[in-house]
């Protein structure tokens, strides 16, 4: 088995209400080491050498992001923890926030020290409002113990928009504006929140930091594959007997997670990465889960043979059309056009020419949309056209 607990090390072990239970498990020792024995540059070097990549979906090298922010001119800098977790089928950040808020706070504190930020924010998904008190309590306890003298950590709650998990829309939302995507460059490490250098990291990314600092980059570096170091926390749902959160070494085969751990049977297809994730037909179930192959934010949605692919793709597209921020034309109009076409296939009223139209529209959206939502929205369409083309052809009037 390839299960390994790094990120989830303390989950269901410590009491999330009491910092003392965390302190007995090396809690805040990494922060102490980072502050007393290392320079900010050394911390960043360590994170870079670890090979840690972002766990929020895009897989950007974490250390490099920090370095850009550290080197950007200015005294006012920000750290943001992305706890919006809006991706369909993800619930691993919720599990982490619920069970181990302290490691996250320590990770944020180390990040702030490394880039020179005096203010940190946790952007909490609106639907996770029930976790607010527990997070505030954890921050207060860390503060009382004197761990947060160099940084203030505040929580900002979202208002329920998927796109606000996207980093630039998220910053708009924190600034009190309508959450809308901004064009890049400039990127957040040079010009982010209120125009100041900012790093935005996913909850799980930051959870890795304390152990990288304590155990060293070379320890972390041995786990995983060539370009995917460490573990990944997966949220498994759908047609499985044991849905839930699993932490596996990167590079583990999808088959092991879906069939051996989650006990799925008669699998038709697995969606890896949520609404804009890849569709993996059963005959490719041996694919490894890594940045080199498929990963996303780790949403694993399993569909068995009773499911209809067109139905799944159609409903996914309805979701994306509703969640498009509406700023850029290819995403705003393109998702709407796709809903119309897929709706006809769903009702077995497809037309011969629709398939080509879908392909050309997909290409234009992927190439020109302003953010990851519009760029990745066509993926379920192109993947299903590739692996389940018959399902479309059978529904042409």
């Amino acid at each position, binding site marked *: 088995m390839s299960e390994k607990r790094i990120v989830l090390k303390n989950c269901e072990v410590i009491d999330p209400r009491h910092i003392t239970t965390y302190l007995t498990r090396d809690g805040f020792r990494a922060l102490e080491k980072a502050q007393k024995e290392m320079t900010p540059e050394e911390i960043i070097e360590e994170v870079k050498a670890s090979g840690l990549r972002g766990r929020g979906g895009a897989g950007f090298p974490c250390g490099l992001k920090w370095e850009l922010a550290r080197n950007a001119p200015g005294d006012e800098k920000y750290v943001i923890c992305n706890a919006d977790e809006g991706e369909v089928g993800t619930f691993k950040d919720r599990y982490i926030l619920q069970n181990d808020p302290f490691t996250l706070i320590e990770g944020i504190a180390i990040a702030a020290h490394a880039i020179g930020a005096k203010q940190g924010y946790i952007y909490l998904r609106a639907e996770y409002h029930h976790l607010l008190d527990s997070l505030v309590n954890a921050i207060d306890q860390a503060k009382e113990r004197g761990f947060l003298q160099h940084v203030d950590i505040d929580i900002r709650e979202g208002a329920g928009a998927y*796109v606000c998990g996207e980093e630039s829309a998220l910053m708009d939302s924190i600034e009190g504006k309508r959450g*809308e995507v901004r064009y890049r460059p400039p990127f957040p490490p040079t010009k982010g929140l209120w125009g100041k250098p900012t790093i935005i990291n996913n909850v799980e990314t930051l959870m890795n930091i304390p152990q990288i600092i304590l155990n060293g980059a070379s320890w972390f570096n041995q786990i995983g594959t060539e370009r995917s170091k460490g573990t990944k926390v997966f949220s498994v749902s759908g047609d499985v007997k044991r849905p839930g959160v699993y932490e596996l070494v990167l590079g583990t085969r999808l088959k092991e997670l879906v069939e051996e751990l989650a006990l799925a049977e008669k699998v038709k297809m697995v969606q890896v990465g949520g609404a804009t994730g890849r569709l993996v037909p059963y005959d490719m179930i041996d694919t490894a889960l890594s940045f080199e192959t498929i990963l996303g934010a780790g949403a694993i949605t399993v569909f068995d043979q009773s499911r209809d692919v067109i139905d799944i793709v159609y409903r996914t597209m309805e979701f994306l059309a509703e969640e*498009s921020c*509406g700023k850029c034309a290819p995403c705003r109009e393109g998702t709407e056009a796709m809903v119309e076409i897929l709706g006809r296939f769903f009702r077995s009223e497809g037309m011969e020419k629709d398939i080509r139209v879908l392909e050309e*529209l997909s290409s*234009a959206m992927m190439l*020109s949309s*302003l953010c990851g939502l519009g760029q990745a929205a066509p993926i379920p369409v192109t993947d299903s056209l590739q692996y389940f083309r018959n399902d479309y052809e059978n529904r042409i009037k």
Partner: protein
Amino acid sequence: MRKIEKITVTIDGSQVSGCEGMTILELAQQNGIDIPTLCHSPELTPIGACRICVVAVEGSRTLVGSCHTPITQGMVIYTHSPKVLETRKVIVELLLASHCGSCYMCEKANVCQLRKIAADLEVGLPRFQTRKRYYPIEDVSPYIQRDLSKCVLCWRCVRACNEIAKQNVFGIAYRGFNSKVVVDFDQPIDKEVCQDCNVCIDICPTGALSKPREVGEEKKGRPLVISS
């Protein structure tokens, strides 16, 4: 004082140079290369919403918006590659598909930038059957008429009101396909400040914003003839 750096880039095969901070669009225009734009206006801060100005840049996974992307040393740019043209066409086609299409009776038909871009890119009847955007005409104000069925969501009016007229009358509400330029909590425009400023009307690329028309008044501009 900081010296302004010269930057050399390759655009459509020729080497040219520009200054630091210049956008790809500005450099192209300086070199006589025409890139279509819709949401962009030189008087306003760029917003990158319409995506019609996209160009290909070597090494970039996606196309990039030329109206907001600064040039960098050694950049290799293609402004009219087949992929670029195809993408621009699909975007215009999408905008036309949901557009009301009553050009024959539109006040601004002869000066409409959407029609002009569609003609230049040779976009024919759209292949999409998207629903049409429909909103009743807002003609409460004697100074400005809004027909948002014709709006292409370029945000020019929003930015012009904010940046040029310094009034901030417009905002955006709703999301996705239902996004809409609104006044206050989506009320018909009838503001003291909106009298004879005309800034937004002049900058709107379509017939969405206009002066209420007097009976018998002629249409603006010369008839737009689309050559085949």
